[in-house]
C-alpha cells in the first residue's frame, strides 16, 4: 500500500470539502472501501452498492456530489462507465464516445442493432469501478 499517496488524496478531500462536511465523509468512506475490498469484487459498483458501503447518514445529494467529485480529474478515485438497458436484467456496455455522441445528437445508436433510440436517457445507466489511481495506491 502506498501510504503516502493515500494520505495525499485524503488531504485533498479535506482541502476541497472541509473535514467536517458530509461530502468529505462520503469521499473517505468510498476511498477506504475501494482500498479494502478484493479488487475482483469491485467490477460493477452502482449507486446502490456505494450507498451500502457508505451507510445511512449522508443524504443522496451529498453522495451524488461526492461521487461526481471522485470521478473528476483532481481526485480520480472512481472510473465512470455507462451501460444500456431496455430489458430487465439485460445490460449492454456503452463506450464513452457512444454516450458523448448521443448527448450531442439527442439520439443513442443501439449498441447491437444500430437503430436510433429516442428518449435514451431513461435507458442509460451509470456504474463505477476503481480508477487506475486506486491500483497505484494498492500496489
Amino acid at each position, binding site marked *: 500500500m502506498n501510504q503516502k499517496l493515500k494520505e495525499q488524496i485524503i488531504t485533498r478531500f479535506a482541502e476541497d470539502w472541509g473535514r467536517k462536511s458530509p461530502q468529505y465523509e462520503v469521499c473517505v468512506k468510498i476511498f477506504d472501501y475501494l482500498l479494502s475490498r478484493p479488487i*475482483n469484487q469491485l*467490477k*460493477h459498483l452502482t*449507486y*446502490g*452498492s456505494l450507498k*451500502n458501503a457508505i451507510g445511512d447518514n449522508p443524504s443522496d445529494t451529498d453522495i451524488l456530489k461526492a461521487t461526481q467529485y471522485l470521478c473528476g480529474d483532481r481526485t480520480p478515485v472512481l472510473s465512470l462507465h455507462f451501460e444500456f438497458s431496455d430489458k*430487465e436484467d439485460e*445490460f449492454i456496455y456503452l463506450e464513452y464516445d457512444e454516450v458523448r455522441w448521443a448527448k450531442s445528437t439527442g439520439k443513442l445508436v443501439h449498441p447491437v442493432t444500430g437503430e436510433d433510440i429516442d428518449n435514451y436517457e431513461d435507458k442509460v445507466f451509470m456504474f463505477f469501478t476503481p480508477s487506475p489511481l486506486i491500483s497505484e495506491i494498492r500496489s
Partner: protein
Amino acid sequence: MERIEIRLDIGSDAGDRELSFNQIRRAFQNLVSRLTIKDYKLKKENIVNLFSAIDDLYRSSEGRVCELAFTTEGGSIKRERMRRSNECLRTEAYHDGGIKAVDGKISSYRIAATWEHGADTSLVTQPELLLPGYSRMLSEITPILMDADITNCAGIEDFNFVVNKLNDFIGNESKT
C-alpha cells in the same frame, strides 16, 4: 376490473344510506386531490418509498425469504427462488455460501417473503409479500418503489398482518 369500490357498513338503520355514502365519497375525493397532482400522480411528499425495505427485510430475520434478486459487485445479477414451501433462502446452502464469499456485499432489488399466520388457530395461512424492484433501480441515486404485492391472503386479517410487517421496514413518516 377498472373500479374502485367504496364500501359502507350501514348497520341496522339504512335510512341515511345515501347521505352516508356521499359523505364517504366526498372524503375519498378530498383525500385523492390532497395526495395527488395533475393526472392523479402522487405528490412527492406523499410517496411511500418501499425500496429500502427490500434490503432491510432480507437482512432481518423476519419471515421466510422465498425469492431474492440481487447484484454483486463482481458484476453479476442473481435471481433465486426456493422450491420448498417451508425453507428460507437466507439459510439455503448455495445462497449462504455465495453470500459469505462476497462478505455479504450484495445489493438486493426484489424480494418475496412469507409468514405463517394463525399458528395458534385451526387455519394456518401463508400470506406472501413481494417487493418487485428492478435491477436498474440500483443505478439510480434515489430509487423509488411504490408497489407491494400481497398475495395468498385468506382474508383481511392476513392482509393487515403483512402490511404491519411491511410497516416495520419503512420510516415512521411514511407508513402505509
